């Protein structure tokens, strides 16, 4: 329909939905109220399972199948990007060489920050059940940290460091590990995704039963998935430069 009609429909729709939302917001408990029934049950449940980071307990222990679903969405989306950006026959990805060499300072900071950010990422994954963080955040951090090699060096060295098939199967392995832990729950206690490991001492690294293991599985999946994702987009950009022959 013409732009003018679309404006009218959009205007009416926005006004209507705005009014609807406002009416609902006015009847909701006021911002900052202390009325949180689900929290009153979730915090003791997390403490009972020895998980200091209650968010981690809710994500991986109390509402585990939600996170399994989110993992599957992540896995499906990365796969979809692989499918949609698969190089057709006339485009084979060969990055352009001889582009601008990075400044000396960038090289220095890049190579200094690389191990630092990798360790931080690993720490955030491993301590997901004790301090803020977890598999999702740590995984993406690891994925972006690896690309410091490209920032500080050349794209070719990054390519050698990350063979794509390894990370594709790494992502599948992470999701499979998460599901396998779910089945282990059935084997041990008869209930899917149950927290069957000992809960350890509250607040220590060895605590919260299966939550750290699930965090690590998610860290592996999200880390490798992130690398595959960014790799696909970088390959696409270099494809364009090769066709046009322009500097990258």
């Amino acid at each position, binding site marked *: 329909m013409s732009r003018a009609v679309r404006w009218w429909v959009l205007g009416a729709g926005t006004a209507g939905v705005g009014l609807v939302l406002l009416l609902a917001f006015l009847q909701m408990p006021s*911002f*900052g109220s202390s009325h949180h029934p689900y929290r009153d049950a979730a915090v003791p449940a997390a403490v009972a399972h020895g998980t200091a*980071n209650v*968010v*981690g307990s809710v994500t991986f222990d109390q509402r585990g199948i939600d996170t399994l679903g989110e993992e599957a969405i992540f896995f499906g989306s990365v796969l979809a990007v692989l499918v949609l950006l698969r190089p057709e026959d006339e485009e084979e990805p060969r990055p352009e060489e001889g582009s601008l060499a990075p400044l000396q300072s960038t090289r220095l900071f890049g190579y200094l920050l690389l191990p630092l950010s990798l360790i931080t990422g690993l720490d*955030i994954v491993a301590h997901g059940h004790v301090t*803020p*963080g*977890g598999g*999702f*955040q740590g995984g*993406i*951090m690891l*994925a*972006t940290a690896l690309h410091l090699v490209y920032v500080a060096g050349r794209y070719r060295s990054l390519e050698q460091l990350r063979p794509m098939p390894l990370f594709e199967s790494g992502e599948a392995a992470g999701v499979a590990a998460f599901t396998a832990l779910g089945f282990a729950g059935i084997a041990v206690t008869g209930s899917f995704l149950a927290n069957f490991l000992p809960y350890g001492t509250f607040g220590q690294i060895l605590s919260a039963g299966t939550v750290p293991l699930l965090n690590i599985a998610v860290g592996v999946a999200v880390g490798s998935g*992130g690398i595959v*994702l*960014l790799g696909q*987009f*970088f390959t*696409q*950009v270099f*494809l*364009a*430069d090769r*066709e*046009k022959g*322009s500097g990258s």
Partner: protein
Amino acid sequence: MSVLIAVVLTLVLVCGALVVFTGNVQRQAVTLSLYGLLMTLLFVLLSAPDVALSQVVAGTAVVPLMVLLTYRKIRGLR
């Protein structure tokens, strides 16, 4: 409701409008990154550290980077 949260909420709203109403995609990616940072600040103020960490990693770094790479690819194809 503390004044600081109200201020940051207003900044988030203004920056969101900025992202929506920037026509050029390249500038929009940079504004999106700024928007991600403001959201991170808001989540810290709402005492949600996990979500702030998630936002700073995904919303500030990865998504704008992919938007820029997409923009570069589309401009290259034109």
